[in-house]
């Protein structure tokens, strides 16, 4: 397997979807970078999100199947009603085990799996959201030495998720949503 790409895990729920989409349209294609989006959404909304992102040109965009190899230059969206796990062999696994914080996919689950897989170069980002899923996961990423960033609760449509993270620790960066494209274009480096 070739070198592991740089990887951002991005979590969000209510209020994150539109700004994230806008930001992604401005992120220049980078074959060494991978974005993993873990967004809470309705069950059985199978194709909606990928459809909404179709305008992205060069990025390879998909809802990964189980055991899809994790490649650079790709944006992966966690499929509805499955947890998305990162395996150290360099592919995803899916799981239907119980929801975490009422969420499946759960951001915590994806972030924990990344840590346990020992993914070499990665960072975590939490956006606007209505519950505290992801806060603990991001904190654990911080403790494991990964770069962490949280949307400024002041400009999050629903500040609960960023606030929950900030209540646990001081992330490396608290950013206004307008700077998200800039953040995503950078390769995450260990703190």
């Amino acid at each position, binding site marked *: 397997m070739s070198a592991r790409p740089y990887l951002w895990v991005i979590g969000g729920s209510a209020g994150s979807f539109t700004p994230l989409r806008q930001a992604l349209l401005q992120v220049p294609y980078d074959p060494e970078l991978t974005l993993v989006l873990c967004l809470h959404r309705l069950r059985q909304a199978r194709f909606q999100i990928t459809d909404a992102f179709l305008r992205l040109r060069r990025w390879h965009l998909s809802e990964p199947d*189980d*055991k899809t190899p994790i490649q650079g230059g790709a944006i992966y969206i966690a499929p509805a009603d499955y947890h998305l*796990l990162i395996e150290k062999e360099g*592919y995803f696994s899916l799981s239907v085990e119980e929801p975490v914080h*009422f969420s499946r996919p759960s951001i915590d689950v994806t972030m924990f799996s990344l840590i346990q*897989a020992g993914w070499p170069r990665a960072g975590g980002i939490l956006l606007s959201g209505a519950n505290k899923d992801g806060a603990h996961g991001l904190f654990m990423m911080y403790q494991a030495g990964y770069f962490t960033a949280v949307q400024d609760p002041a400009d999050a449509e629903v500040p609960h998720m960023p606030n929950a993270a900030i209540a646990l620790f001081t992330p490396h960066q608290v950013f206004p949503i307008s700077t998200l494209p800039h953040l995503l274009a950078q390769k995450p480096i260990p703190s």
Partner: protein
Amino acid sequence: MIEDVLPDIAESDLEAFFQITHTIYGYDFRDYARASVLRRLGTILKKYGLPDVKALNQRLLKQKEFFETFLSEFTIGTTELFRDPSAWVALRKQALPLFLSTSQIRIWHAGTSTGEEVLSLAILLTEMGLYPRAQIFATDIDQKALQTAPKARYPLRYKRTYQENFQQVLPDVPFSRYAYEEGNELVFDPQLLRNVRFLRHNLVSDEPFSRFEMILCRNVLIYFTPELQDRVIRKFIQALVPGGILMIGTKESLFWCKEAEKKLASVNNLERIYRRQG
């Protein structure tokens, strides 16, 4: 509210765990996808107040009767009646009609869990008049689930989802034809299980026990490594009669199995329904 856990699991303890479950109990979990194994172990440690996997290993060594409980916690039994309705619609419209003139329809449902998918299948077969010719073998490694399944009774709180799924697959059929409420349970017509046998069977170590016109195995392969997926899918292909149908989970793929490329043709690629050629 379920809180998540990130256990710190020593590689040597994990190795010992694989040894014990394999050599003492006969279950080889080495080729289960690692991320999920670690999650399950973390959950079990928390639930039973065990400090680490070493302590779990001790318990498994000393308390033989704990194993079935452990196994039931370790496996992930999440299931629904007609989970992924569009997949069942595809099965009904594109696959089951292939058997309209088949005299005997042997079906293997592997990873049946608590049986909701067997009921889904039995309902479709009944609606299409195929049930009397069907013989269904429903298998799993989780003994507790296998004890629940034959009762065809579920907590009433599942009714809403089950009925919604049912109505999406069979919009013209009343749900009450097959299920009714009794106390705080949702009860299915026992007639649906008259041609069903529940058996314990391990996809990792046991061979297929017959040949089949159809095999359904959904959301089980996701817990396996690509290598184990390949081995299991080969077994399925071998066990299918020519023209037989294989259905896997909507987000599972045959990507890692070369044999599948040669032997299986797609019936509905999106819904992951395939047919054995020749």
